[in-house]
């Protein structure tokens, strides 16, 4: 796989533009190709920074309170995080 192809497929993947067979192929190739994994990882980080492109707004304070209340409820019923989670969403 050429550098250009690696970069293009990684860029499309980072932006969520791969689907179906293309996505499955990319994942297979990523598993087998450390250079592709590296490019993919870097471009995912670059893509994450695009959130700063949006006009900046503060999240409402009520959202923070709602979240912490939800966490307190979960701590009360499950203790440490993840004990009531039914499945894992890939991280990173």
């Amino acid at each position, binding site marked *: 796989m050429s550098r250009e192809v690696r970069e293009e497929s990684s860029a499309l993947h980072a932006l969520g533009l791969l689907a179906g067979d293309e996505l499955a192929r990319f994942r297979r190739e990523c598993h087998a190709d450390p250079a592709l994994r590296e490019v993919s990882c870097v471009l995912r*980080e670059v893509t*994450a920074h695009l959130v700063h492109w949006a006009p900046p707004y503060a999240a409402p304070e009520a959202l923070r309170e709602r979240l*912490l209340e939800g966490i307190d409820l979960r701590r009360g019923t499950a203790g440490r995080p993840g004990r009531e989670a039914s499945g894992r969403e890939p*991280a*990173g």
Partner: protein
Amino acid sequence: MAEAPLLLTNDPGERDRTDALLLGLVAEGDREAFGRLYDRFSGPLYSAALHILQDAAEAQDIVHDAFITLWEKASSFERTRGSAFSWAVTLVRNRAIDRIRMRRRRAELLAESVPEDLGYGTDNGAPSADDAAVQGDNARLVRAAIAALPAEQRRALELAFFGGLTQEEIARRLEEPLGTVKARIRRGLLKLREALAPQL
């Protein structure tokens, strides 16, 4: 909670280490660490969700769900696969994009639901959310890097990141061949990688 060091720093490596440290504490059930992580991430995440969805209530729901996922699955985070921030962005963005695609399928309002312009050419009067100096500096650097991109690369990235369009939909929207769109996206992200290298 163990004290997380250097919460306010311009060193991207230190920033990512602090985020990862906080996420590790969250995995142990540390409520205060969760609050601190929220304070570090919520501004840009909420802003992005709001920009994608154009609906404050939906944006709040998305950010709420993403942070609950962070809480529930913090122990599955692998730093070797990326930063905590990029994981959080992925959680929020995927949910927001899923929601607008569902909305479009329902209402068949594809053309109307994509923001035409992000408005950085003019003062859009958006209230600033970032009172954290570091986050603000980072945001300014990113915006400057994006502003330096050729307009056609910027537009392709904008439609992909905030519009939730597929490759084919972007090509149709821009009236360009699919290969051209893919190349613009690739070149745009590579230029941003170069410009943001000190931040990565």
